């Protein structure tokens, strides 16, 4: 499958090394629609290709939005792109968050670090229907205040629904919570019809899921977005296998019920 060349239309540095890019077709042609939780393969010229989740439903005019952190050669090249530069895009791929299952239920969203990026589209989608859905609560943990994503939007969200932000470390200027995201989760109680969406480093998800199970959330009400080495994104290169699943096409979003047998096996 061939990448499609798209242009960088807008670039925001979230914090040093992490940027959010808006991509669009040079000829303004509409782009294939995507669902919250799906991802694109982004190709940096000559450097390689990496899977990056859609990080916003907006702008609604058919542009794509991706938040990228510098980790290797390809992400390093992508984060250096400037408006007007080109990038190769394949997608959308994968299964996203179970939006249809959320109607009328309390939605608990637990995000860690860059894990907020794949969750932002689902938060935006739910906000559009806030009147028809139950409560939404966001628990968001980050390394330090300067590494919080989408700070303006977080401030807006906190006026509309419960947002609990916590950081691992902070100086005196930070007035919010300090501590692991699970520690702000611990005292909370969740109604029995809740559905939980978890995204962050695997270790953080492991402990968050443990906390949710302790609070009597059934495995079928817990969804998480997994990461493995994805190269082809179509289930043909074999790299992202995780037990019987291909993370690229069977995930990246999984229902915990379906993967609980594999989740705790090491080096799977």
């Amino acid at each position, binding site marked *: 499958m061939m990448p499609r060349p798209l242009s960088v239309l807008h670039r925001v540095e979230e914090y040093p090394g992490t940027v959010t890019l808006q991509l669009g077709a040079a000829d303004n042609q509409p782009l294939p629609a995507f669902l919250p939780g799906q991802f694109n393969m982004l190709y940096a010229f000559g450097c390689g290709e990496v899977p990056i989740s859609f990080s916003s439903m907006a702008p609604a005019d058919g542009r794509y939005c991706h938040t990228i952190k510098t980790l290797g050669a390809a992400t390093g090249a992508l984060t250096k792109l400037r408006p007007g530069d080109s990038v190769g895009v394949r997608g959308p791929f994968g299964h996203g968050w179970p939006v249809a299952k959320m109607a009328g239920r309390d939605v608990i969203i637990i995000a860690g670090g860059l*894990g907020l990026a794949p969750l932002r589209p689902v938060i935006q989608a739910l906000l559009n229907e806030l009147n028809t859905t139950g409560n939404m609560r966001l628990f968001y943990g980050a390394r330090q205040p300067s590494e919080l994503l989408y700070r303006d939007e977080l401030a807006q969200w906190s006026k509309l629904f419960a947002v609990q932000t916590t950081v691992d470390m902070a100086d005196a200027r930070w007035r919010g919570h300090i501590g692991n995201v699970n520690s702000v989760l611990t*005292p909370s109680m969740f109604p029995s019809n809740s559905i939980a969406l978890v995204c962050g480093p695997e270790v953080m998800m492991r402990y968050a899921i443990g906390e949710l199970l302790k609070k009597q959330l059934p495995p079928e009400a817990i969804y998480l977005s997994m990461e493995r080495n994805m190269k082809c994104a179509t289930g043909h290169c074999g790299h992202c296998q995780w037990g019987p699943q291909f993370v690229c096409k069977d995930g990246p979003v999984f229902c915990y019920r379906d993967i609980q047998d594999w989740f705790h096996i090491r080096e799977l």
Partner: protein
Amino acid sequence: MALVGSLTQHPFFRGMTMADLQLIAACGARKSFAAGDYLGREGHSADHFYLILRGQVSIEIYFPERGALRLQTLSDGDIAGWSWLFPPYRWRFDLRAQTSVDTIALDGCRLRAECDRDPRLGYDLMQRFAAIMTDRLQATRLQLVDLYSHHAGAGS
């Protein structure tokens, strides 16, 4: 009675007998703090622990050259303080209100005496505190591993 009601609703006391709750309530009093007030100070005697009803409290360590470094925060529904349980019954860290804070302050000296008199109550309370310490230790360990520095975000 209002105090017993508040205790009954708190998950920390879930499943306790009314007799025990009344005994504990008798050791308690509502206490509010203004932002900046200390609930406990490192080295000072730890006579109380607090049930935070509303507000945010930080656990801090004081550096001579930098001032207070906040390590963790506690808020609504959290229990603050277990130094009253163990000799030398002194606070190990500072505990300071970050906002105005409403609490139920429980008299640790009296409760300790009750626990000595009734080891069943002592064991029950110890179990409840051990669970909180375990949660707090786990959260601290997760803070230590610097989870987010190598993570790219799921699907990325």
